[in-house]
């Protein structure tokens, strides 16, 4: 098994895809971080201004305790993990496309072994992308916001944890889907469309049709977004003092955790999606005639 893991690792490091996708990942993370920091600063400055003082008092807002920059982090992670998702999707779809899958299966004790080795290596890559994402998002925030706007060390650790988890799960979701639909262009377009357009439309439709808000948290993007978004909201609320219920609703929507369950439950829900995609892809790849 160690041999196969090394082989899969080599496959990923001997082509340029990993850094070709890491560049936009880092740019989006950094950009998202900068934007989050700026947004947070703008809010604080607005609510602290003499004009808004009355409003702040009325709402019970204590601007210096409202870490608005936190709320953009979830969104940034969600967007940036599109790239590890694509990286994962090309794991098997790419091999089917170049037909190296034949040699891969010829040199592995079984297809199950080959798939398992791939899963481990892509989980590792998911973690690497995740660390890059949280690192550059944090950098962006540090550059643009004041220290009062930032979480404490524990908060950062928690954010890093869910970011890495989210990135690993997104990568594996991609691996599974790429095995289920082993066509590089097809699966990449489908995933981008789904995560950026289709599910958002679906969420909007659900909300408009009066389905309970929590339904959204069970969708793939709703749940993976909830994994990071819920942590961001939790960290925000921990320091924000009293926030009216209506306010919390909008905070969650803003952080990308609208309708989502608690972070760990959201993580488990998305894990179920990953398992479904992976299970389907696994079944397909172990049965498929390689001709």
């Amino acid at each position: 098994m160690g041999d196969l893991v090394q082989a899969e690792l080599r496959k990923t490091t001997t082509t340029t895809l990993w850094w070709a996708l890491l560049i936009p990942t880092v740019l989006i993370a950094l950009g998202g971080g900068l934007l989050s920091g700026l947004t947070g600063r703008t809010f604080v400055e607005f609510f602290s201004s003499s004009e808004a003082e009355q409003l702040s008092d009325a709402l019970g807002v204590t601007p210096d305790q409202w870490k608005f920059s936190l709320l953009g982090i979830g969104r940034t992670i969600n967007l940036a993990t599109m790239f590890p998702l694509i990286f994962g999707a090309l794991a098997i779809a790419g091999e089917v496309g170049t037909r190296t899958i034949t040699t891969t299966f010829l040199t592995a004790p079984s297809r199950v072994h080959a798939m398992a080795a791939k899963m481990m290596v892509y989980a590792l890559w998911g973690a690497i992308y995740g660390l890059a994402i949280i690192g550059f998002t944090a950098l962006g925030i540090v550059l643009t916001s004041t220290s009062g706007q930032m979480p404490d060390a524990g908060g950062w650790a928690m954010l890093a944890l869910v970011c890495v988890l989210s990135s690993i799960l997104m990568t594996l979701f991609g691996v599974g889907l790429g095995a289920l639909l082993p066509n590089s262009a097809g699966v990449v377009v489908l995933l981008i469309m789904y995560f950026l357009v289709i599910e958002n439309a679906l969420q909007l439709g659900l909300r408009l049709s009066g389905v309970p808000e929590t339904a959204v948290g069970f969708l793939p993007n709703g749940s993976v977004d909830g994994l990071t978004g819920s942590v961001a909201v939790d960290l925000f609320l921990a320091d924000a003092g009293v926030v009216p219920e209506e306010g919390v609703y909008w905070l969650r929507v803003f952080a990308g955790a609208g309708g989502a369950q608690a972070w760990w439950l959201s993580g488990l829900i998305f894990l179920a999606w990953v398992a479904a995609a992976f299970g389907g892809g696994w079944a397909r790849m172990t049965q498929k005639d390689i001709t």
Partner: protein
Amino acid sequence: MHDGSGLIAVQNLTKQFGSVTAVQNLSFTVSPGSVTGFLGPNGAGKTTTLRMLLGLVKPTSGTATINGRPFHQLGRPGRVVGAVLEAQGFHPNRTARNHLRVYASAIGVPDAQADQVLGLVGLSTAAGRNVGGFSLGMKQRMAVATALLGDPQVLVLDEPANGLDPEGIAWLRNFLQSFARMGRTVLISSHLLAEVEQTVDQVVIVSRGQTMYYGPLEHLRQQQQRRVFVQPSDVGALATALREAGVQALEQLPDGRLAVSGVDAKQVADTALRAGVSVYGIQEEQADLEQIFFRLTSGQFVGHAPAPYQQQQGGWA
């Protein structure tokens, strides 16, 4: 685990792709120490059979084993069997050396083996180049190099001569023969008998998914029969006279000629003379291996009325 015998055994193998029967109840064995040719025209089911043997395609029924085991029970298959398959791929942006190192680690052999096999197939100087820029023949050499990475006991090659230059073909021929002489097993497919005639000792000839001949190439050579085509004034009288003379292998051709096997032209002419039949034309033809192969694979083996020889040759070329 496997028995290390180097034996390939295909038994009652059948593969159905939807309504297409690619392979039908195929059986043969391949022994170590010799090169076995797996021959048949395009679409005969060669590729499908080899892919079933290599665990890439699931048989509809029947079994295919290497060293007494189905592929997925070989443990470390890369060390037991190496394969050169049609449309086996390479990542275009991975260098030759890196491609081989990837699979060297999968098989569990040292990285040095990658350079070793590159040298063996004559690609050392291209080791650092991306495989995407390789010619068809270079890719084929790469496929051979990949197959040899694990120093396997059994080699399976599907039409490996495709794209190879004459030098490459000559190299492959020598390589496979010496490989077999080391007591290892080689199974090589081709749609051209001539292409492998000098390389193989045994042949399995398939057509439309079924075995048509299976045995030493030498036996096939001995089947090379002379046929005499004669245009007599009275076909019936000549046929009767020939049967009386003990010649049974007669065929009446649609053009009115009689095809007589196993005798020479002189014997036929003498018999005709004795029977008082005029001979308007007589021709002797020696079926070469290629023609036997064609007759076997076009499903018109003795017993049916075959098309005239000339036409067959035309169809073959």
